[in-house]
């Protein structure tokens, strides 16, 4: 598959937007502006971008506690994301949810989740609805290696497979669930191998190579949309920050391991490829960098100047009427 230069440059811009937004959230967390948990996506950006590049606005994404990148990749404005983490009324959940409860159905982000593995069954159900309603839409479940050991994973991929549902399962295997190494909770290091038991295609992908993810996801989304059933992509990747901001990051993994993965930074890799193949020039990348910075600064200013939610609205939306 040859990916056009313009597409590659567009991917670069998007991947950079996630990184710079996350870096801003880290600083904001350190300043005490984020009130609850904040799990960053730094290091894993290629996965969300490579997958969501193939989705239409009415395709649906179901995400995890580490969902800022999925939200941005699906089109949530950075301002609405930051404002949500700041607990402001203009946040994408009106301040009700925070980092782990981002909702933007208008762009197909059907929720990040504080409960591990919830995305898998919900995405399977959305795909069931698409197939029932004869719509050519696709749903995507993002989830971690930790979720792959939850019953919901086994039950979800089995149902998707037997009913040939239009869903793509994207396992982001970043080698750890909090501080638990995947190797200590799975005898087989590959989540993708589990698909054999359930009769759906599974593929291991370099999750730090946005073009590799882009290619694999193109196939998987096409398969789903054409009615040929689900696929599981296992993207091997790594989070280079602690599990959650404010948590320790020692005692369970080595500084050398972190450095080795930082060297495989998906952004640096794409940049050197763009430059090496002459797809983009240094000055072009610098311009993108400046533009992305400006977007993030504007988003931050928007969030900081946004109002708090009105306590009088506390019980709005518990019921439909």
């Amino acid at each position, binding site marked *: 598959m040859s990916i056009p230069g313009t597409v590659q440059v567009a991917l670069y811009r998007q991947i950079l937007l996630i990184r710079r937004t996350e870096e801003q959230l880290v600083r904001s967390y350190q300043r005490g502006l984020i009130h609850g948990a904040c799990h960053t996506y730094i290091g894993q950006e290629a996965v969300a971008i490579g997958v969501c590049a193939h989705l239409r606005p009415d395709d649906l994404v179901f995400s995890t506690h580490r969902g800022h990148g999925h939200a941005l990749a699906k089109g949530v404005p950075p301002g609405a994301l930051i404002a949500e983490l700041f607990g402001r009324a203009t946040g994408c959940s009106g301040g*009700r949810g925070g980092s782990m*409860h981002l909702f933007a159905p208008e762009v197909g982000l059907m929720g990040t989740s504080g409960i591990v593995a919830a995305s898998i069954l919900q995405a399977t159900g959305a795909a069931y609805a698409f197939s029932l309603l004869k719509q050519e839409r696709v749903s995507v479940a993002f989830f971690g290696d930790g979720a792959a050991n939850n019953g919901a994973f086994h039950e979800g991929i089995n149902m998707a497979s037997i009913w040939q549902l239009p869903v793509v399962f994207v396992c982001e295997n970043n080698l750890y669930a909090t501080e638990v190494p995947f190797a200590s909770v799975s005898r087989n290091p590959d989540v993708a191998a589990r698909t054999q038991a359930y009769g759906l295609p599974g593929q291991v992908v370099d999750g730090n190579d946005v073009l590799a993810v882009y290619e694999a996801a193109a196939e998987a989304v096409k398969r789903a949309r054409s009615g040929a059933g689900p696929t599981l992509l296992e993207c091997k990747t790594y989070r280079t920050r602690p599990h959650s901001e404010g948590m320790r990051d020692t005692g369970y993994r080595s500084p050398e391991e972190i450095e080795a993965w930082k060297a495989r930074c998906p952004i640096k890799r794409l940049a050197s490829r763009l430059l090496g193949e002459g797809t983009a020039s240094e000055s072009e990348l610098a311009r993108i960098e400046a533009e992305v910075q400006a977007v993030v600064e504007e988003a931050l200013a928007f969030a900081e100047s946004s109002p708090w939610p009105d*306590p009088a609205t506390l019980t709005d939306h518990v019921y439909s009427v």
Partner: protein
Amino acid sequence: MRELTFVAAAREGLAEEMARDPSIFVMGEGVGARGGNFNTTTGLYELYGPQRLRDTPICERGFTGLCTGAAMAGARPVVDFMFIDFELDALGELFHQTSRIQYMSQGRIKMPILLRGCIGIFGSAGPHHSGNYYPLFMHVPGFRVAVPTTPADAKGLIKTALRCNDPVLFLEHKGLLNVRGPVPDGEHLVPFGQAAVVRDGRDVTVVAIALQVKHTLEAATRLQQEGISVEVIDPRTLAPLDTATIAASVHKTGRLLIVDEDFAPCGVGAEIATQIVDQVFDDLDAPIRRLNGAFVPTPYSPPLEAAAVPGVEKIAAAIRDLVAE
């Protein structure tokens, strides 16, 4: 007396019982070398190793069912859910199996299992990490439910729980974990079903649950200056529920308020009010009142979260209103 934090006191109780009883093991995510997300097991892995401090995959239903089987076969499991919210993934196992295998086996099989986790609305934990859920377990026959509020009770109740042959929910409010308080030296057990009168008063009885006990005591101190004398009761266990102590207090004060950050419908307050009406109707000088958290999934944003819970101001206002009835 020496002082410990709530979480250290509970951990000391667990450590003492693990030393006493080799059939005790702990299962949960990160309970091994990491010492638990809330430091519930810090230091124990070094003493007892991986078989007795077992890190699990993220499969709550799986390890709850497994621990139920282990309890049936002579072990004494402690399931550490970290946040009690995650236990909901295992409710089928707990309600169908754990709670009623003793009954179904006509008492021939025991169910010595401790189910622990943090509860409560605290620190912008948001809709998936702020649950209380104790009424669920009060409602199902078979469970015992302990909700300690002081370090001493945390230690005394966890030790009692670890000698109990019924499934015990041990619920720790996140807002209390780092509270310090005196803990007796030596063997210290607190029996189930004995409420504590944590402040004596004449004018009104307030039963408070978990973190609200702390807030109610603060409100009571303030109201003292206004000439209102508040008696505060901490039930300590919700199942069994010591209504005799509450009734005796109401006999004296004639007024009862139940303060609970959990939802009102079918909640602890409804249960206490009904039992108290049954027992001491003639002693009541005013209707029984409840002060609960808002009936809403717990929101994240600080001003919304604050609006969702009782707290010193609202408790003081509710007590003033009740005394004026």
